[in-house]
């Protein structure tokens, strides 16, 4: 039988507050999202940097000294790997529903790599 409209609260008494909604079109990821995904970005950068360093070492080069374009290439690789990882873990729906845009996702993987490359460049310049 088709029920008529029922508006009474069920046994599950729920809080009927309206959740926050941004009035703008963009929403920044909160610190919990940022730390979770930036940690993954850092892991990816460490992996990519170790691999690059090993290849350079085997080729007789200096694993610490990279020019700017090579460092940026590593950052780009980290972003690509991070986005592929998001796809592999079926996280598009989660991140989209959290209001995290594809650009913000890329930034979550780019920032740890940029920080890491800057740190390595500093260390390399100190060592000489």
């Amino acid at each position: 039988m088709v029920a008529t409209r029922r508006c009474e609260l069920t046994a599950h008494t729920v809080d009927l507050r309206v959740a926050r909604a941004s009035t703008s079109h963009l929403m920044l990821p909160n610190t919990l999202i940022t730390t979770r995904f930036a940690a993954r970005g850092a892991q990816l950068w460490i992996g990519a940097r170790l691999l690059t360093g090993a290849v350079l070492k085997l080729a007789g080069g200096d694993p610490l000294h990279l020019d700017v374009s090579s460092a940026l290439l590593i950052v780009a690789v980290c972003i690509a790997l991070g986005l592929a990882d998001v796809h592999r873990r079926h996280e598009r729906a989660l991140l989209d529903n959290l209001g995290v845009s594809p650009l913000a996702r890329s930034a979550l993987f780019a920032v740890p790599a940029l920080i890491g490359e800057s740190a390595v460049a500093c260390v390399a310049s100190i060592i000489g």
Partner: protein
Amino acid sequence: MPLLVADCVSKSFRGRRVLTSSSLRAVEGELRVVLGRNGSGKSTLLKIAAGWIQPDAGIVHYDGQALLEARLPQLAARGLFYLPDHDLFSTAYPVRVQLELFERQFGGTSVDDALECVGVSALGQKMPSALSGGELRRAEIAAIMVRRPRCLLADEPFRGIAPKDAEEIGQLLRTLSCSGMAIVLTGHEVPTLAGVADHITWCTAGTTYELGPPSAAMQHEGLRRDYLGQAPYLRAL
């Protein structure tokens, strides 16, 4: 006035036209249901309305604003929640952690209350891959509770859930719509869906028909002939 309108949308996949001219409306305080046979374009229509995929033609309006290219992250920031037919949760984190992401980002119902509400309190620490289909769907309903959106588009929310549990969750969604949420559901669980719906939309042959309240919709000759069939339990509808 509808909060969300997907107006006259069409969509083809690899030359196969799925939607020709379909429309979808989500109205605050109303629970609307889209019915239709497998492959009729219900999910595609919902995805277009949610900004998950882009239509070939047509437009999406949200909160009075026309959006030429609606994108889910932007709509989500303005209060929309899209529950896909599978894979809402990441495989990387336990359910509780993912619900906490919503709580921290939007501040709706607490995670503990939401998990208890849908009867999966004990499963919060588990990874989504460790849950059965029905448990996972309940956990995804908990995400709706935590998010507490202005507008919910849910693709087959009762998939894999036992009839009794589906009835409870249906009542929960009914309560949410009464609190002002605009809800659109799809599915094939006709008695459950008709029991909670305010309005039925029929999706067939690439277009949609607004059939009105369930009592009127269930008498619609075309819907009975092409979708409901003659199953004994449906005759009561």
